[in-house]
């Protein structure tokens, strides 16, 4: 994270210095470097916070100036998107740099991939065995899992998890959440170990 942050700071410093005297080509190069620098964090936010309600393709098809992206992100926060002010800034800057009005319809992939996405909630090695807290798991479920697994874990596009046999095999449950399975993405860069334990604890009460 530190490396990316200092990289971002450098890019921003350069872009501020260059402001005013930029040609279109330089603008483009600047946007690219901002997008590359912010991609690991921003893409992680998109998966964890935006994809709760909609798939990322709704975002990547837009081509908007910064003021419109700012308004869109504000609207989503108003509607419950879990974004801190800092996260909203990162996201708006990234979206404005990558999905601006002059960007081509078919964008090449950003020069990093989600494998490099940084954990949003860094938690160092925990001490002792994890004890899940069901109350916390309920809220985590609503924000991260409900879009596919349905309200109260009763199923939707993804399988019903309430009373799902996999809950009898905690190791398989963890394996699925951490690494994904079939259409389900891997959550290891998004959920902490404690959060997965909380989710498991809550699902057992369902």
């Amino acid at each position, binding site marked *: 994270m530190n490396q990316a942050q200092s990289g971002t700071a450098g890019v921003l410093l350069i872009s501020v210095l260059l402001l005013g005297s930029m040609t279109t080509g330089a603008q483009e190069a600047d946007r690219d470097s901002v997008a590359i620098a912010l*991609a690991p964090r921003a*893409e992680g936010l*998109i*998966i964890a916070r935006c994809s*709760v*309600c*909609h*798939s*990322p*393709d*709704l*975002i*990547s*098809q*837009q*081509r*908007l*100036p910064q003021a*419109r992206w700012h308004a*869109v992100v504000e609207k989503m926060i*108003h*509607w*419950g*998107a879990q974004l801190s002010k800092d996260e909203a800034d990162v996201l708006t800057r990234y979206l404005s740099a990558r999905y601006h*009005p002059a960007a081509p319809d078919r*964008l*090449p*992939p*950003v020069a*990093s*991939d*989600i494998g490099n996405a940084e954990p949003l909630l860094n938690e160092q090695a925990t001490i002792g065995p994890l004890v899940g807290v069901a109350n916390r798991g309920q809220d985590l479920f*609503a*924000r991260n899992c*409900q*879009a*596919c697994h*349905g*309200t109260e874990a*009763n*199923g*939707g*596009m993804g*399988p019903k998890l309430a009373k799902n046999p996999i809950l009898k095999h905690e190791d398989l449950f963890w394996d699925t959440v951490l690494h*994904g399975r*079939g*259409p389900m*993405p*891997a959550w290891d860069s998004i959920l902490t170990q404690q959060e997965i334990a909380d989710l498991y604890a809550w699902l057992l009460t369902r």
Partner: protein
Amino acid sequence: MSTASPLSRRSWLKGLAALVASGTFHDLRLAARAFAQEEASPRETGPLTVRVSRPFDAETPVGELNTFLTPTHRFFVRSHFGPPPSEHLADDRWRLHVGGLVERATGFSMADLRRFSPVSLTAVLQCSGNGRAHHRPRVPGVQWDRGAVGNAQWTGVRLREILETAGVKPEAQHVRFQGADRPVVDRVPLFTRSIPLAKAAHPDTILAYEMNGHPLPLLHGAPLRLITPGWMAESCIKWLTDIVVQDGEADGYYMQQAYRTPVRPVQPSDQLDGVPTTTVDRMVVKSLITRPAEGESLARGPVTIQGVAWSGEAKVVAIEVSFDEGVTWEPARFVGEGHPYAWRQWQYVWNPKQTGSRSILCRATDERGETQPARSPWNPGGFLWNGWDRVTVTVAGT
């Protein structure tokens, strides 16, 4: 997110294509298997062009709009939150509640509704945002191209008979509709819409339980969907469960903020706060070229250009084509009979004299005298695009 997403676009597409093809989510196992496969499958060859994977929004490739009735599995799909869990819609659980300014609040089961005389009509359904991708500057929202439209036969019960059963009070002015779909996060407003009582009581406004002669599929609003012929599809509430008769328009985001257009022309640079807006309701006159396809290479010799044209509650009375960027127009001819609310097929036999890249344009005119403009007026929601349709082809040399 292109390749950066851990969810491969292709696996989503395959899975969703399977869902659409099956018409319901019943065969989840099949869909899950399709999701899991990593097969090359260009999006253009599926039954629909997917714009958003979840909630599923997809449009029809325009070449598939060449028939009078659009096949159900190719009919565009749009919703704000995706379908509700199917168990909420099962016969033993689902009810239609009619309340508000009525003499007798009444609940109806599907069996109750089927006891009313069934009515069938053919009507175009079109997303208000169809063509949004053509507005400049760009407008946020699903970037629909040309295919968020279709023509289907709808069968159901007249809404006015349901309202008469409940007894509408004299002070009633509007009727509000709510479906069973729900947002994932409860701070997101419900998708609620209302229509004026005059439209609700019109004999052609129906609550449909069949589409193209078969039970309404889940993605299209099973078990019951409002059909407001001639009006944009956001009035055609899916998964309908509640009808509330009231004295004013529905409150809420999707009636008072979204799906509105300025009452006077605006520029993208204008300060739009305070500009009066009106809710989007009836469709505007519009046409599409369905043959030949965009980018097609044509052999020399006569080519039959085909398409469809429609206009909300009015009849289309003329369809024209142009090969010189709209400087001159040639009349095309309609095929078959006109039906109220349905689109009309048309064709034109073209004998191109020049070879190389050629653009074909079309425009329709309705009985009110409204003609499609070259470009539709810009509006902040990107609604009601009806600019001239365009297909560019290559005519081969000798």
